[in-house]
């Protein structure tokens, strides 16, 4: 609910109330005309005014009206203080009402997550796995480290090892082929044959050695590819193990999602309740402020009425005040 005043306006208004001569009218209003008068005129004016005010039909209503107006002024000042105090209390209450409330989550596998507010006002989250999960995580992490360690190793030794294994698988058949060729060449009487066109060997020996060399080359390239594939595989396994190592934590995080949603709902309800509380409180304060303001206005109007009556000129002789004021203002104006 807005009353059309800002806090600054209210503060100015409060400060203005501290001025005894300021009752809502600019202080220089009453002094208007006096500043510009000469020393003799001003004293005359004051002497005329005093005479006027000392008249009974002017003095009584004027005094009562002044008191009532002062009472209204004082009440309005109290209303402001009470409104401020009430608003501050409301803010403090709502701060307390909307403050984060820690919660904990425990999964079925024994992992847990807890939250707490630090003395500095921060929110601290703690998570913990069960011993079995920690062991599994350690194993997976260790495995990932091992795989990554193997993945970053140079592939030369592995290539050689694979090559040797491939060659050891090929050699027996090659040896059988060599023996068969040797026997065939012996049967053909060609064992001792050497031709420059075939590098000092025979066509079949050259073909055989070429085939063996091709197989060796293929084994070498295959070993390189296999070593690289294994390196990739090690890296992939490392990644898989690493991902699996974080799986308990991920599952814990997943398990906290419902709790977090509940906490959020709770926070939302808490905020909503605080809002309702604030609105209700503020409504009370506003109602009280309006009532008090109305009472103050009533007093003020009564006082103003009395003052107005006292200062209003009468035809029965009560026109001296008006006359006096008229003369005052006429002089002033003149």
């Amino acid at each position, binding site marked *: 609910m807005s009353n059309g005043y800002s806090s600054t306006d209210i503060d100015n208004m409060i400060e203005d109330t501290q001025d005894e001569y300021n009752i809502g009218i600019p202080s220089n209003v009453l002094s208007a005309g006096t500043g510009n008068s000469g020393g003799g005129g001003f004293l005359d004016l004051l002497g005329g005014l005093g005479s006027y005010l000392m008249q009974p039909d002017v003095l009584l209503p004027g005094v009562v009206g002044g008191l009532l107006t002062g009472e209204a002024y004082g009440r309005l000042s109290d209303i402001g203080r009470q409104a401020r105090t009430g608003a501050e209390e409301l803010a403090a209450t709502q701060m307390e009402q909307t403050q984060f409330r820690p919660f904990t989550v425990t999964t079925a596998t024994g992992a847990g997550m807890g939250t707490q507010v630090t003395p500095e006002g921060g929110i601290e989250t703690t998570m913990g796995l069960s011993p079995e999960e920690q062991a599994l995580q350690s194993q997976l992490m260790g495995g990932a480290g091992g795989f990554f360690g193997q993945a970053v190793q140079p592939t030369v030794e592995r290539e050689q090892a694979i090559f040797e294994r491939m060659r050891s698988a090929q050699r027996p058949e090659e040896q059988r082929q060599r023996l068969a060729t040797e026997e065939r060449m*012996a*049967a*053909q*009487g*060609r*064992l*001792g*044959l*050497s*031709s*420059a*066109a*075939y590098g000092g060997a*025979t*066509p079949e020996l050259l073909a055989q050695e070429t085939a063996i060399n091709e197989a060796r080359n293929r084994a070498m390239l295959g070993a390189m590819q296999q070593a690289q594939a294994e390196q990739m595989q090690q890296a992939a396994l490392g990644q898989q193990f690493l991902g699996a190592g974080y799986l308990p934590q991920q599952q814990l995080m997943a398990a906290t999602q419902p709790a977090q949603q509940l906490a959020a709902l709770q926070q939302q309800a808490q905020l909503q309740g605080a809002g309702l509380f604030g609105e209700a409180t503020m409504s009370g304060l506003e109602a009280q402020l309006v009532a008090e303001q109305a009472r103050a206005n009533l007093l003020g109007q009564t006082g103003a009425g009395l003052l107005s009556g006292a200062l209003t000129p009468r035809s029965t002789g009560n026109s001296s005040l008006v006359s006096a004021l008229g003369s005052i203002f006429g002089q002033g104006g003149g």
Partner: protein
Amino acid sequence: MAQELRSINLVAPAFKGVNTEDSPLAQDPSFAEIADNAVIDKRGRIAARKGHDVITTNKTVLGSDSIRVMKEFKDNAGNTKVFSVGNNKIISGTTTLVDETPGSYTITADNWKMVNFNDNTYFFQRAYEPLVYNNTSGSVVKLSTVTGASAAADIPKANEVLSAYGRLWCADISDNKSTVFWSDLLIGQNWTGGTSGSIDISKVWPDGYDEIVALAAHNGLLIIFGKHSIVAYQGAEAPASMTLADTVAGVGCVDRDTVQYTGTDVLFLSHTGLKSFGRAIQEKSLPISSLSGNITKDIIGALQTENQFFRSVYSPEEGFYLLTFVGQDVTYCFDVRGTTENGSYRVTRWVSTGFTSYTRQEDGTLLIGTSKGISEYEGYQDDGSPYRFKYYSPSLTFGDSSRIKILKKLKPTLVGANNATVFLKWAYDFKSSYATAEFTVGDQITGFFGVSEYTAVEFTGGALTNQKSLNATGYGTSIVVGLEADIDGSQLSLQEINVMALIGKLL
């Protein structure tokens, strides 16, 4: 009571050649016990061989040595040149011998083998860098100096070389007796590149070990002769792929210079006599019929005592294959026109000829190397001198070796032999002391119609035939009849000998 004369007519005596293998008593009279300086003539008769006509007029470079090897260079342009070897020199020419030995090339042996290949003549001898000649260079040079040649150390210093299947093949080097080397295709000086190569047959010998002696190309095969075995390879046109076709154990070759091609067979001398490779391949197993089966022991004895060279030549014009044991100055003449019942060639023997080398020229001329230079096989004198023709029959028993034979008359029929003095000999009972009857053949100059003058010569149709009747003496159970004559300018053929004898009592 007078007894009837028994006549034994030796028609075309010795037309089967010499036979020293069978028992003299059981022999066919068609064989001869001795047939020296004889051949089988075109009529199948035993006849005197031709002589040699020395055509060399200047043999200064030869000195007192003999021509050891001869070969006629031929190229596709028709150029020819006769090369010979002797006195540790490479010699060219036939009339005037010219030293062709490369400069700064020292030779201490004359056992070269020369082959023609792709317009070049190559000279190979064990432990010597091969030499080469072609008509372009006009001189004999070291093979390693030819453009495109392998280094001297890479060229085999072989004793045997063969030109066949578009390559040179060689074998028998000092420290390697089991490897055959071949040159690049058509490039006889390249022994390291191209399609050159080699084959070590030390694991191929059928009897475990042998040494290569000779090479031959025959019937698409590369024939490798060892001393005691033969190995044949097929597919030698592409030597890198050639394969073993056959092996023969127990038959080898004595010397590379005994190998000759007859068109159908390859003849070579083995330790058991003259063999034919074509025949050996057909039979594929021992025993192999020997082409010298009638003189096997003589051949074996000759090759066992030979301490110099073997030389041979095949002459299709003369129809013989000559095999000379140079150190013994003995030549066996095998008539290749036919064989006897045992598959052997008819063979005669030439002795004391002084022949040390042969070559047959493209026109069929047979050149003979001697200490006098180069001769042609023609005429009936040896460099103007007569030579002795001999024929001795095997022992004749007239069908009954148990009775005494009393020889009465000998009637030889000779063809030719103009003015020759003929010695007719006979002996009894295997004794070496012969009785001799000598006679001179009359003038046998032929006169032809329209050519010869009237009354100057007797008109004849060709060679004249002369028949004599000589009285014989003595007696015995077996008789050997011989005929000797000095051949001095005229041919002599023995047509027949008619032997007249009385058959006496039983011993």
